[in-house]
Protein backbone atom coordinates (compact mmCIF):
# COMPACT_ATOMS: atom_id res chain seq x y z
CA UNK A 1 0.00 0.00 0.00
CA UNK A 2 2.76 2.41 0.89
CA UNK A 3 4.42 1.49 -2.35
CA UNK A 4 1.26 2.28 -4.27
CA UNK A 5 1.01 5.72 -2.67
CA UNK A 6 4.67 6.35 -3.36
CA UNK A 7 4.24 5.56 -7.01
CA UNK A 8 1.16 7.74 -7.20
CA UNK A 9 3.06 10.60 -5.61
CA UNK A 10 5.75 10.21 -8.24
CA UNK A 11 3.24 10.26 -11.09
CA UNK A 12 1.70 13.58 -10.09
CA UNK A 13 4.74 15.79 -10.80
CA UNK A 14 5.30 13.97 -14.09
CA UNK A 15 1.76 14.76 -15.15
CA UNK A 16 2.15 18.37 -14.07
CA UNK A 17 5.37 18.55 -16.09
CA UNK A 18 3.66 17.01 -19.08
CA UNK A 19 0.91 19.59 -18.90
CA UNK A 20 3.46 22.41 -18.65
CA UNK A 21 5.33 21.04 -21.63
CA UNK A 22 2.24 20.73 -23.80
CA UNK A 23 1.17 24.19 -22.66
CA UNK A 24 4.53 25.59 -23.72
CA UNK A 25 4.13 23.83 -27.04
CA UNK A 26 1.34 26.15 -28.03
CA UNK A 27 3.45 29.18 -27.19
CA UNK A 28 6.53 27.97 -29.00
CA UNK A 29 4.64 27.65 -32.22
CA UNK A 30 5.52 30.45 -34.60
CA UNK A 31 2.70 32.74 -35.65
CA UNK A 32 -0.19 34.30 -33.82
CA UNK A 33 -3.03 31.92 -32.94
CA UNK A 34 -5.47 34.83 -32.88
CA UNK A 35 -4.50 35.96 -36.35
CA UNK A 36 -4.93 32.35 -37.46
CA UNK A 37 -8.46 32.40 -36.08
CA UNK A 38 -9.36 35.30 -38.33
CA UNK A 39 -7.78 34.05 -41.53
CA UNK A 40 -10.44 33.13 -44.01
CA UNK A 41 -13.02 35.26 -42.25
CA UNK A 42 -12.33 38.54 -43.96
CA UNK A 43 -9.52 39.59 -41.64
CA UNK A 44 -9.84 41.69 -38.52
CA UNK A 45 -8.70 45.03 -37.18
CA UNK A 46 -5.93 45.29 -34.60
CA UNK A 47 -8.48 46.29 -31.94
CA UNK A 48 -10.66 43.29 -32.69
CA UNK A 49 -7.67 40.98 -32.40
CA UNK A 50 -6.56 42.61 -29.18
CA UNK A 51 -10.03 42.24 -27.78
CA UNK A 52 -9.98 38.53 -28.54
CA UNK A 53 -6.53 38.25 -27.00
CA UNK A 54 -7.77 39.97 -23.87
CA UNK A 55 -10.81 37.70 -23.71
CA UNK A 56 -8.69 34.57 -24.14
CA UNK A 57 -6.21 35.86 -21.54
CA UNK A 58 -3.37 35.83 -24.05
CA UNK A 59 -2.10 39.19 -22.80
CA UNK A 60 -1.36 37.83 -19.31
CA UNK A 61 2.17 36.76 -18.30
CA UNK A 62 2.97 33.15 -19.24
CA UNK A 63 2.89 31.66 -15.70
CA UNK A 64 -0.50 33.26 -15.08
CA UNK A 65 -1.74 31.80 -18.34
CA UNK A 66 -0.45 28.38 -17.33
CA UNK A 67 -2.20 28.49 -13.96
CA UNK A 68 -5.43 29.54 -15.65
CA UNK A 69 -4.98 26.82 -18.24
CA UNK A 70 -4.45 24.20 -15.53
CA UNK A 71 -7.53 25.42 -13.65
CA UNK A 72 -9.55 24.86 -16.80
CA UNK A 73 -7.90 21.53 -17.56
CA UNK A 74 -8.67 20.23 -14.08
CA UNK A 75 -12.29 21.12 -14.70
CA UNK A 76 -12.18 19.18 -17.93
CA UNK A 77 -12.03 22.28 -20.13
CA UNK A 78 -9.30 21.93 -22.77
CA UNK A 79 -10.39 24.89 -24.84
CA UNK A 80 -12.05 24.90 -28.21
CA UNK A 81 -10.95 23.99 -31.71
CA UNK A 82 -9.81 27.02 -33.71
CA UNK A 83 -11.30 25.46 -36.82
CA UNK A 84 -14.68 24.13 -35.74
CA UNK A 85 -15.16 25.83 -32.37
CA UNK A 86 -16.03 22.42 -30.90
CA UNK A 87 -14.86 21.89 -27.30
CA UNK A 88 -11.63 19.87 -27.37
CA UNK A 89 -12.78 17.71 -24.45
CA UNK A 90 -15.82 16.64 -26.46
CA UNK A 91 -13.65 15.83 -29.46
CA UNK A 92 -11.42 13.68 -27.26
CA UNK A 93 -14.36 11.91 -25.66
CA UNK A 94 -15.75 11.15 -29.09
CA UNK A 95 -12.47 9.95 -30.55
CA UNK A 96 -10.97 8.05 -27.63
CA UNK A 97 -13.32 5.02 -27.49
CA UNK A 98 -12.46 3.81 -31.02
CA UNK A 99 -8.75 4.30 -30.34
CA UNK A 100 -8.98 2.47 -27.02
CA UNK A 101 -10.88 -0.34 -28.71
CA UNK A 102 -8.18 -0.65 -31.35
CA UNK A 103 -5.37 -0.45 -28.80
CA UNK A 104 -6.89 -3.07 -26.53
CA UNK A 105 -7.64 -5.40 -29.43
CA UNK A 106 -4.07 -5.21 -30.69
CA UNK A 107 -2.76 -5.55 -27.15
CA UNK A 108 -4.82 -8.72 -26.66
CA UNK A 109 -3.67 -10.06 -29.97
CA UNK A 110 -0.05 -9.22 -29.20
CA UNK A 111 -0.17 -10.93 -25.79
CA UNK A 112 -1.82 -14.09 -27.07
CA UNK A 113 0.45 -14.41 -30.10
CA UNK A 114 3.55 -13.16 -28.33
CA UNK A 115 3.28 -15.37 -25.25
CA UNK A 116 2.37 -18.54 -27.11
CA UNK A 117 5.07 -18.16 -29.74
CA UNK A 118 7.55 -17.13 -27.07
CA UNK A 119 6.87 -20.32 -25.13
CA UNK A 120 7.09 -22.45 -28.24
CA UNK A 121 10.39 -20.91 -29.20
CA UNK A 122 11.82 -21.30 -25.70
CA UNK A 123 10.76 -24.92 -25.37
CA UNK A 124 12.07 -25.81 -28.80
CA UNK A 125 15.17 -23.73 -28.29
CA UNK A 126 17.73 -24.04 -31.05
CA UNK A 127 15.49 -26.10 -33.29
CA UNK A 128 14.04 -25.02 -36.58
CA UNK A 129 10.75 -23.95 -34.98
CA UNK A 130 12.66 -21.62 -32.70
CA UNK A 131 14.60 -20.11 -35.57
CA UNK A 132 11.53 -19.62 -37.73
CA UNK A 133 9.53 -18.02 -34.91
CA UNK A 134 12.38 -15.71 -34.04
CA UNK A 135 12.90 -14.74 -37.67
CA UNK A 136 9.20 -13.90 -38.01
CA UNK A 137 9.45 -11.95 -34.78
CA UNK A 138 12.40 -9.99 -36.11
CA UNK A 139 10.55 -9.33 -39.35
CA UNK A 140 7.56 -8.19 -37.30
CA UNK A 141 9.63 -5.55 -35.55
CA UNK A 142 11.10 -4.42 -38.85
CA UNK A 143 7.91 -4.13 -40.85
CA UNK A 144 6.38 -0.66 -41.05
CA UNK A 145 2.82 -0.84 -39.72
CA UNK A 146 1.47 1.29 -42.55
CA UNK A 147 2.83 -1.04 -45.20
CA UNK A 148 1.56 -4.08 -43.33
CA UNK A 149 -1.84 -2.36 -43.09
CA UNK A 150 -1.95 -1.69 -46.82
CA UNK A 151 -0.98 -5.28 -47.57
CA UNK A 152 -3.64 -6.63 -45.21
CA UNK A 153 -6.31 -4.47 -46.84
CA UNK A 154 -5.48 -5.47 -50.36
CA UNK A 155 -5.08 -9.17 -49.58
CA UNK A 156 -7.79 -9.89 -47.02
CA UNK A 157 -10.36 -7.22 -47.77
CA UNK A 158 -10.10 -6.42 -51.46
CA UNK A 159 -8.81 -9.68 -52.88
CA UNK A 160 -10.18 -12.41 -50.59
CA UNK A 161 -13.10 -10.30 -49.36
CA UNK A 162 -12.93 -11.83 -45.85
CA UNK A 163 -13.16 -8.56 -44.01
CA UNK A 164 -14.91 -5.27 -44.69
CA UNK A 165 -12.76 -2.69 -46.42
CA UNK A 166 -14.21 0.22 -44.55
CA UNK A 167 -13.38 -0.22 -40.86
CA UNK A 168 -16.01 1.09 -38.52
CA UNK A 169 -18.51 -0.97 -36.57
CA UNK A 170 -18.27 -4.58 -35.48
CA UNK A 171 -15.39 -6.87 -34.59
CA UNK A 172 -14.78 -7.83 -38.22
CA UNK A 173 -13.80 -4.30 -38.99
CA UNK A 174 -11.36 -4.37 -36.10
CA UNK A 175 -9.37 -7.47 -37.06
CA UNK A 176 -7.12 -6.08 -39.77
CA UNK A 177 -6.25 -2.81 -38.01
CA UNK A 178 -5.53 -4.75 -34.82
CA UNK A 179 -3.18 -7.09 -36.66
CA UNK A 180 -1.40 -4.21 -38.38
CA UNK A 181 -0.95 -2.41 -35.10
CA UNK A 182 -0.27 -5.39 -32.83
CA UNK A 183 2.12 -7.40 -34.98
CA UNK A 184 5.26 -5.58 -33.91
CA UNK A 185 4.25 -5.69 -30.26
CA UNK A 186 3.57 -9.44 -30.58
CA UNK A 187 7.06 -9.87 -31.95
CA UNK A 188 8.63 -7.94 -29.10
CA UNK A 189 6.64 -9.87 -26.49
CA UNK A 190 7.55 -13.20 -28.08
CA UNK A 191 11.24 -12.37 -27.87
CA UNK A 192 10.89 -11.20 -24.30
CA UNK A 193 8.96 -14.29 -23.22
CA UNK A 194 11.50 -16.53 -24.89
CA UNK A 195 14.56 -14.98 -23.31
CA UNK A 196 13.07 -14.72 -19.80
CA UNK A 197 11.81 -18.29 -20.01
CA UNK A 198 15.24 -19.49 -21.07
CA UNK A 199 16.75 -17.71 -18.12
CA UNK A 200 14.25 -19.12 -15.66
CA UNK A 201 14.43 -22.63 -17.09
CA UNK A 202 18.09 -22.76 -16.18
CA UNK A 203 17.58 -21.77 -12.57
CA UNK A 204 17.85 -24.09 -9.58
CA UNK A 205 14.26 -24.46 -8.53
CA UNK A 206 13.16 -25.38 -12.01
CA UNK A 207 15.90 -27.90 -12.28
CA UNK A 208 14.80 -29.23 -8.90
CA UNK A 209 11.20 -29.40 -10.03
CA UNK A 210 12.27 -31.33 -13.06
CA UNK A 211 14.40 -33.60 -10.98
CA UNK A 212 11.40 -34.27 -8.78
CA UNK A 213 9.84 -35.72 -11.90
CA UNK A 214 7.23 -33.09 -12.58
CA UNK A 215 5.96 -33.24 -16.11
CA UNK A 216 7.70 -30.80 -18.42
CA UNK A 217 4.45 -29.03 -19.23
CA UNK A 218 3.66 -28.45 -15.57
CA UNK A 219 7.14 -27.19 -14.90
CA UNK A 220 6.74 -24.59 -17.57
CA UNK A 221 3.23 -23.64 -16.57
CA UNK A 222 3.66 -23.52 -12.84
CA UNK A 223 7.18 -22.35 -12.24
CA UNK A 224 8.72 -20.89 -15.28
CA UNK A 225 5.87 -18.83 -16.65
CA UNK A 226 5.04 -17.25 -13.33
CA UNK A 227 8.57 -15.99 -12.93
CA UNK A 228 8.84 -14.94 -16.49
CA UNK A 229 5.68 -12.88 -16.08
CA UNK A 230 7.37 -9.86 -14.55
CA UNK A 231 9.51 -8.74 -17.48
CA UNK A 232 6.61 -9.57 -19.73
CA UNK A 233 4.25 -7.31 -17.82
CA UNK A 234 6.81 -4.53 -18.02
CA UNK A 235 7.09 -4.84 -21.73
CA UNK A 236 3.30 -5.02 -22.05
CA UNK A 237 3.02 -1.75 -20.15
CA UNK A 238 5.62 -0.13 -22.36
CA UNK A 239 3.99 -1.51 -25.46
CA UNK A 240 0.62 -0.11 -24.50
CA UNK A 241 1.98 3.39 -24.95
CA UNK A 242 3.60 2.38 -28.19
CA UNK A 243 0.32 0.97 -29.46
CA UNK A 244 -1.59 4.05 -28.40
CA UNK A 245 0.85 6.20 -30.36
CA UNK A 246 1.04 3.71 -33.21
CA UNK A 247 -2.70 4.12 -33.65
CA UNK A 248 -1.87 7.53 -35.10
CA UNK A 249 -0.57 5.84 -38.23
CA UNK A 250 -2.79 2.77 -38.35
CA UNK A 251 -5.96 4.86 -38.04
CA UNK A 252 -4.75 6.80 -41.04
CA UNK A 253 -4.24 3.66 -43.12
CA UNK A 254 -7.63 2.18 -42.26
CA UNK A 255 -9.56 5.47 -42.32
CA UNK A 256 -10.60 4.76 -38.74
CA UNK A 257 -11.99 7.40 -36.49
CA UNK A 258 -9.85 8.03 -33.39
CA UNK A 259 -7.48 10.19 -31.40
CA UNK A 260 -4.70 9.55 -33.90
CA UNK A 261 -6.60 10.88 -36.85
CA UNK A 262 -7.83 13.78 -34.77
CA UNK A 263 -4.23 14.62 -33.83
CA UNK A 264 -2.84 14.36 -37.33
CA UNK A 265 -5.54 16.50 -38.87
CA UNK A 266 -5.14 19.03 -36.05
CA UNK A 267 -1.40 19.18 -36.73
CA UNK A 268 -1.89 19.51 -40.46
CA UNK A 269 -4.39 22.32 -40.04
CA UNK A 270 -2.44 23.87 -37.15
CA UNK A 271 -5.40 23.60 -34.82
CA UNK A 272 -3.27 23.87 -31.70
CA UNK A 273 -5.81 23.64 -28.90
CA UNK A 274 -6.86 20.29 -30.37
CA UNK A 275 -3.27 19.10 -30.87
CA UNK A 276 -2.33 20.26 -27.38
CA UNK A 277 -5.34 18.63 -25.74
CA UNK A 278 -4.85 15.40 -27.66
CA UNK A 279 -1.14 15.14 -26.83
CA UNK A 280 -1.79 15.93 -23.17
CA UNK A 281 -4.55 13.36 -22.99
CA UNK A 282 -2.54 10.54 -24.54
CA UNK A 283 0.47 11.31 -22.34
CA UNK A 284 -1.64 11.29 -19.19
CA UNK A 285 -3.26 8.00 -20.17
CA UNK A 286 0.20 6.56 -20.77
CA UNK A 287 1.52 7.71 -17.41
CA UNK A 288 -1.52 6.21 -15.70
CA UNK A 289 -1.10 2.90 -17.51
CA UNK A 290 2.52 2.73 -16.46
CA UNK A 291 1.49 3.45 -12.91
CA UNK A 292 -0.98 0.59 -13.13
CA UNK A 293 1.71 -1.72 -14.46
CA UNK A 294 4.00 -0.77 -11.59
CA UNK A 295 1.28 -1.57 -9.11
CA UNK A 296 0.52 -4.84 -10.82
CA UNK A 297 4.19 -5.67 -10.46
CA UNK A 298 4.05 -5.20 -6.76
CA UNK A 299 1.00 -7.41 -6.54
CA UNK A 300 2.63 -10.24 -8.48
CA UNK A 301 6.05 -10.06 -6.92
CA UNK A 302 6.03 -8.95 -3.30
CA UNK A 303 9.81 -8.64 -3.31
CA UNK A 304 9.65 -5.45 -5.34
CA UNK A 305 7.81 -3.37 -2.80
CA UNK A 306 10.31 -4.41 -0.16
CA UNK A 307 13.32 -3.71 -2.30
CA UNK A 308 12.44 -0.14 -3.08
Amino acid sequence: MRYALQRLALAVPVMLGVSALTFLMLHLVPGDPVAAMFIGHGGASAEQMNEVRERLGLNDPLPVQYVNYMKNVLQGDLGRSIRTNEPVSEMILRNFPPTLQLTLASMGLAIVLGVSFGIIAAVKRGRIVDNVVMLIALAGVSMPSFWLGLLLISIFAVWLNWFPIIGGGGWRGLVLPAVALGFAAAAIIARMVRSSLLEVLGENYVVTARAKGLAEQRVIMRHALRNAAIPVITIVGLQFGGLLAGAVIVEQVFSRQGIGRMLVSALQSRDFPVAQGGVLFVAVVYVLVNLLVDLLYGAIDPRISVER
Partner: protein
Amino acid sequence: MAGSAAGEIGRFSGPRSQWAIVWRQLRLNRAAMIGAALVLFEIVLALTARWITPYDPFDQNPLAALQPPSREHLFGTDDTGRDLFSRVIYGAQISLRVGLISVGIGGGIGIVLGIIAGYRGGVLDNAIMRVMDLLLAFPGILLALAIIAILGPGLFNVMIAVGISSIPYYTRVARGSALALRDREFVLGARAIGCGDAHITWRYILPNVLPPLIVLATLGIASAILTAAGLSFIGLGAVPPAPEWGAILTLGRKYINQAWWYTTFPGLAIAITVLGINMLGDALRDALDPRLRR
Protein backbone atom coordinates in the same frame (compact mmCIF):
# COMPACT_ATOMS: atom_id res chain seq x y z
CA MET B 1 21.46 -4.39 -18.83
CA ALA B 2 23.53 -1.29 -18.16
CA GLY B 3 24.48 -2.51 -14.72
CA SER B 4 25.59 -5.93 -15.89
CA ALA B 5 27.63 -4.44 -18.69
CA ALA B 6 29.30 -2.23 -16.15
CA GLY B 7 30.44 -5.32 -14.31
CA GLU B 8 32.84 -6.18 -17.10
CA ILE B 9 33.45 -2.71 -18.15
CA GLY B 10 37.03 -1.91 -17.15
CA ARG B 11 38.41 -4.10 -19.85
CA PHE B 12 37.02 -2.15 -22.74
CA SER B 13 39.49 0.62 -22.22
CA GLY B 14 42.57 -1.57 -22.16
CA PRO B 15 44.93 -1.54 -25.12
CA ARG B 16 44.17 -5.15 -26.07
CA SER B 17 40.50 -4.60 -25.52
CA GLN B 18 37.39 -6.66 -25.40
CA TRP B 19 36.63 -5.52 -28.96
CA ALA B 20 38.63 -8.38 -30.39
CA ILE B 21 36.52 -10.84 -28.44
CA VAL B 22 33.33 -9.08 -29.53
CA TRP B 23 34.39 -9.23 -33.13
CA ARG B 24 35.16 -12.93 -32.87
CA GLN B 25 31.75 -13.49 -31.36
CA LEU B 26 30.04 -11.54 -34.10
CA ARG B 27 31.86 -13.44 -36.78
CA LEU B 28 30.54 -16.71 -35.43
CA ASN B 29 26.97 -15.40 -35.32
CA ARG B 30 25.16 -16.10 -38.55
CA ALA B 31 22.43 -13.54 -37.92
CA ALA B 32 25.03 -10.89 -37.24
CA MET B 33 26.77 -11.60 -40.51
CA ILE B 34 23.51 -11.52 -42.48
CA GLY B 35 22.56 -8.26 -40.80
CA ALA B 36 25.97 -6.76 -41.42
CA ALA B 37 25.87 -7.84 -45.05
CA LEU B 38 22.47 -6.22 -45.52
CA VAL B 39 23.62 -3.00 -43.90
CA LEU B 40 26.82 -2.95 -45.90
CA PHE B 41 24.89 -3.62 -49.10
CA GLU B 42 22.60 -0.75 -48.24
CA ILE B 43 25.48 1.62 -47.60
CA VAL B 44 27.14 0.66 -50.88
CA LEU B 45 23.88 1.25 -52.75
CA ALA B 46 23.45 4.63 -51.12
CA LEU B 47 27.01 5.73 -51.85
CA THR B 48 27.02 4.55 -55.43
CA ALA B 49 23.44 5.54 -56.28
CA ARG B 50 24.65 8.11 -58.79
CA TRP B 51 26.42 5.52 -60.87
CA ILE B 52 24.29 2.40 -60.50
CA THR B 53 20.82 3.85 -61.06
CA PRO B 54 19.69 3.47 -64.65
CA TYR B 55 17.54 6.64 -64.55
CA ASP B 56 17.37 10.01 -62.86
CA PRO B 57 15.04 9.48 -59.88
CA PHE B 58 13.24 12.74 -60.66
CA ASP B 59 12.94 12.22 -64.39
CA GLN B 60 9.30 11.91 -65.37
CA ASN B 61 8.18 10.12 -68.47
CA PRO B 62 4.45 10.55 -69.01
CA LEU B 63 4.40 7.88 -71.69
CA ALA B 64 5.71 5.22 -69.30
CA ALA B 65 3.44 5.76 -66.30
CA LEU B 66 2.59 2.83 -64.00
CA GLN B 67 4.47 0.18 -65.92
CA PRO B 68 4.96 -3.17 -64.19
CA PRO B 69 8.48 -4.41 -63.48
CA SER B 70 10.37 -5.22 -66.65
CA ARG B 71 13.90 -5.38 -67.90
CA GLU B 72 13.99 -1.61 -68.49
CA HIS B 73 12.37 -0.82 -65.16
CA LEU B 74 13.29 -3.48 -62.60
CA PHE B 75 10.79 -2.19 -60.01
CA GLY B 76 8.35 -0.76 -62.55
CA THR B 77 7.44 2.92 -62.83
CA ASP B 78 5.33 5.31 -60.79
CA ASP B 79 2.38 7.41 -61.88
CA THR B 80 4.54 10.02 -63.55
CA GLY B 81 6.68 7.42 -65.28
CA ARG B 82 9.67 7.72 -62.95
CA ASP B 83 11.82 4.64 -62.55
CA LEU B 84 11.02 3.15 -59.15
CA PHE B 85 14.27 1.18 -58.97
CA SER B 86 16.25 4.41 -59.19
CA ARG B 87 13.96 6.10 -56.69
CA VAL B 88 14.18 3.29 -54.17
CA ILE B 89 17.98 3.28 -54.40
CA TYR B 90 18.15 7.02 -53.93
CA GLY B 91 15.74 6.50 -51.06
CA ALA B 92 18.49 4.48 -49.35
CA GLN B 93 20.56 7.66 -49.22
CA ILE B 94 17.76 9.56 -47.59
CA SER B 95 16.89 6.82 -45.11
CA LEU B 96 20.47 6.26 -44.03
CA ARG B 97 20.93 9.99 -43.62
CA VAL B 98 17.74 10.20 -41.57
CA GLY B 99 18.85 7.29 -39.40
CA LEU B 100 22.36 8.58 -38.80
CA ILE B 101 21.46 12.23 -38.23
CA SER B 102 18.57 11.40 -35.89
CA VAL B 103 20.76 9.07 -33.88
CA GLY B 104 23.57 11.61 -33.97
CA ILE B 105 21.30 14.25 -32.48
CA GLY B 106 19.64 11.95 -29.95
CA GLY B 107 22.76 10.00 -29.04
CA GLY B 108 25.04 13.03 -28.95
CA ILE B 109 22.88 15.05 -26.62
CA GLY B 110 21.69 12.02 -24.67
CA ILE B 111 25.14 10.64 -23.91
CA VAL B 112 26.53 14.01 -22.81
CA LEU B 113 23.56 14.58 -20.50
CA GLY B 114 23.77 11.02 -19.21
CA ILE B 115 27.46 11.22 -18.37
CA ILE B 116 27.01 14.57 -16.70
CA ALA B 117 24.11 13.22 -14.66
CA GLY B 118 25.88 10.03 -13.69
CA TYR B 119 29.35 11.44 -13.08
CA ARG B 120 28.34 14.60 -11.30
CA GLY B 121 25.29 13.30 -9.48
CA GLY B 122 23.40 15.49 -7.05
CA VAL B 123 21.02 18.25 -8.10
CA LEU B 124 22.17 18.24 -11.70
CA ASP B 125 21.55 14.52 -11.95
CA ASN B 126 18.12 14.94 -10.46
CA ALA B 127 17.19 17.82 -12.75
CA ILE B 128 18.34 16.05 -15.92
CA MET B 129 16.62 12.81 -15.06
CA ARG B 130 13.30 14.49 -14.19
CA VAL B 131 13.32 16.19 -17.59
CA MET B 132 14.00 12.79 -19.15
CA ASP B 133 11.06 11.32 -17.24
CA LEU B 134 8.92 14.03 -18.78
CA LEU B 135 10.07 13.24 -22.29
CA LEU B 136 9.46 9.55 -21.66
CA ALA B 137 5.88 10.31 -20.68
CA PHE B 138 5.07 10.84 -24.36
CA PRO B 139 4.82 7.38 -25.87
CA GLY B 140 6.27 6.34 -29.21
CA ILE B 141 5.76 8.67 -32.11
CA LEU B 142 3.80 11.17 -30.03
CA LEU B 143 6.72 13.30 -28.88
CA ALA B 144 8.03 13.49 -32.44
CA LEU B 145 4.56 14.58 -33.56
CA ALA B 146 4.47 17.30 -30.92
CA ILE B 147 7.90 18.57 -31.93
CA ILE B 148 6.89 18.65 -35.57
CA ALA B 149 3.89 20.72 -34.51
CA ILE B 150 6.37 23.33 -33.32
CA LEU B 151 8.96 23.04 -36.09
CA GLY B 152 6.59 22.42 -38.96
CA PRO B 153 6.61 19.50 -41.40
CA GLY B 154 9.61 18.53 -43.52
CA LEU B 155 12.31 15.90 -43.59
CA PHE B 156 14.94 17.86 -41.68
CA ASN B 157 12.50 18.70 -38.92
CA VAL B 158 11.57 15.04 -38.76
CA MET B 159 15.22 14.17 -38.07
CA ILE B 160 15.34 16.73 -35.28
CA ALA B 161 12.05 15.51 -33.84
CA VAL B 162 13.04 11.84 -33.96
CA GLY B 163 16.46 12.72 -32.52
CA ILE B 164 15.07 14.70 -29.61
CA SER B 165 12.51 12.08 -28.74
CA SER B 166 15.25 9.44 -28.45
CA ILE B 167 17.44 11.49 -26.08
CA PRO B 168 16.09 10.01 -22.82
CA TYR B 169 16.97 6.43 -23.81
CA TYR B 170 20.63 7.32 -24.32
CA THR B 171 20.70 9.48 -21.22
CA ARG B 172 19.38 6.69 -19.03
CA VAL B 173 21.87 4.12 -20.21
CA ALA B 174 24.83 6.50 -20.19
CA ARG B 175 23.96 7.70 -16.71
CA GLY B 176 23.68 4.17 -15.38
CA SER B 177 27.12 3.24 -16.67
CA ALA B 178 28.72 6.49 -15.62
CA LEU B 179 27.28 6.13 -12.15
CA ALA B 180 28.76 2.66 -11.80
CA LEU B 181 32.15 3.85 -13.08
CA ARG B 182 32.42 6.93 -10.92
CA ASP B 183 33.80 5.09 -7.91
CA ARG B 184 35.80 2.42 -9.70
CA GLU B 185 39.51 2.17 -8.84
CA PHE B 186 40.85 3.34 -12.15
CA VAL B 187 38.72 6.46 -12.07
CA LEU B 188 39.56 7.21 -8.47
CA GLY B 189 43.17 6.57 -9.32
CA ALA B 190 43.08 8.99 -12.23
CA ARG B 191 41.54 11.60 -10.01
CA ALA B 192 44.19 11.00 -7.37
CA ILE B 193 46.99 11.72 -9.79
CA GLY B 194 45.30 15.01 -10.63
CA CYS B 195 43.46 14.38 -13.88
CA GLY B 196 40.70 16.88 -14.66
CA ASP B 197 37.06 15.88 -15.05
CA ALA B 198 37.13 16.45 -18.79
CA HIS B 199 40.17 14.24 -19.17
CA ILE B 200 38.71 11.52 -16.98
CA THR B 201 35.46 11.59 -18.87
CA TRP B 202 37.13 11.44 -22.23
CA ARG B 203 39.82 8.92 -21.36
CA TYR B 204 38.09 6.60 -18.89
CA ILE B 205 34.34 7.11 -18.70
CA LEU B 206 33.35 7.46 -22.34
CA PRO B 207 35.09 4.36 -23.69
CA ASN B 208 33.52 2.26 -20.97
CA VAL B 209 30.07 3.76 -21.34
CA LEU B 210 30.01 3.21 -25.09
CA PRO B 211 29.36 -0.54 -25.56
CA PRO B 212 25.72 -0.61 -24.44
CA LEU B 213 25.18 2.72 -26.20
CA ILE B 214 26.46 1.32 -29.46
CA VAL B 215 23.79 -1.35 -29.27
CA LEU B 216 21.19 1.29 -28.49
CA ALA B 217 22.35 3.51 -31.34
CA THR B 218 22.32 0.68 -33.83
CA LEU B 219 18.76 -0.25 -32.96
CA GLY B 220 17.99 3.48 -32.84
CA ILE B 221 18.92 3.90 -36.49
CA ALA B 222 16.37 1.25 -37.38
CA SER B 223 13.62 2.82 -35.36
CA ALA B 224 14.46 6.32 -36.65
CA ILE B 225 14.09 5.07 -40.22
CA LEU B 226 10.74 3.49 -39.36
CA THR B 227 9.45 6.56 -37.54
CA ALA B 228 10.55 8.97 -40.26
CA ALA B 229 8.93 6.83 -42.94
CA GLY B 230 5.75 6.75 -40.84
CA LEU B 231 5.76 10.52 -40.51
CA SER B 232 6.26 10.91 -44.24
CA PHE B 233 3.42 8.48 -44.76
CA ILE B 234 1.01 10.68 -42.80
CA GLY B 235 2.19 13.72 -44.73
CA LEU B 236 4.35 15.36 -42.06
CA GLY B 237 7.76 14.30 -43.30
CA ALA B 238 9.41 14.23 -46.71
CA VAL B 239 7.52 15.99 -49.46
CA PRO B 240 7.29 14.72 -53.05
CA PRO B 241 9.15 14.50 -55.34
CA ALA B 242 11.77 13.48 -52.73
CA PRO B 243 12.28 9.71 -53.16
CA GLU B 244 11.88 9.00 -49.45
CA TRP B 245 10.51 5.48 -48.99
CA GLY B 246 7.59 6.48 -46.79
CA ALA B 247 6.67 9.27 -49.19
CA ILE B 248 6.78 6.89 -52.18
CA LEU B 249 4.48 4.53 -50.29
CA THR B 250 2.05 7.36 -49.64
CA LEU B 251 1.90 8.27 -53.31
CA GLY B 252 1.56 4.64 -54.28
CA ARG B 253 -1.14 3.55 -51.88
CA LYS B 254 -4.03 4.71 -54.04
CA TYR B 255 -2.70 2.42 -56.76
CA ILE B 256 -2.31 -0.57 -54.47
CA ASN B 257 -5.04 -2.53 -56.25
CA GLN B 258 -3.69 -1.90 -59.73
CA ALA B 259 0.08 -1.36 -59.37
CA TRP B 260 1.36 -3.61 -56.57
CA TRP B 261 4.98 -2.75 -57.37
CA TYR B 262 4.52 0.91 -56.45
CA THR B 263 4.14 0.16 -52.73
CA THR B 264 5.81 -3.23 -52.54
CA PHE B 265 9.38 -2.20 -53.33
CA PRO B 266 9.66 0.82 -51.05
CA GLY B 267 7.90 -1.21 -48.34
CA LEU B 268 10.35 -4.06 -48.78
CA ALA B 269 13.25 -1.62 -48.79
CA ILE B 270 12.21 -0.25 -45.42
CA ALA B 271 11.59 -3.71 -43.96
CA ILE B 272 14.87 -5.19 -45.19
CA THR B 273 16.95 -2.23 -44.07
CA VAL B 274 15.39 -2.20 -40.64
CA LEU B 275 15.66 -5.99 -40.42
CA GLY B 276 19.37 -5.89 -41.28
CA ILE B 277 20.09 -3.22 -38.72
CA ASN B 278 18.04 -5.02 -36.08
CA MET B 279 19.84 -8.33 -36.68
CA LEU B 280 23.17 -6.59 -36.34
CA GLY B 281 22.04 -4.72 -33.25
CA ASP B 282 20.72 -7.87 -31.58
CA ALA B 283 23.94 -9.69 -32.24
CA LEU B 284 25.96 -6.77 -30.92
CA ARG B 285 23.92 -6.84 -27.76
CA ASP B 286 24.51 -10.55 -27.31
CA ALA B 287 28.22 -10.05 -27.86
CA LEU B 288 28.52 -7.06 -25.56
CA ASP B 289 26.22 -8.20 -22.79
CA PRO B 290 28.01 -11.04 -21.03
CA ARG B 291 24.93 -12.06 -19.10
CA LEU B 292 23.19 -13.25 -22.21
CA ARG B 293 26.28 -14.89 -23.61
CA ARG B 294 25.61 -18.52 -24.26
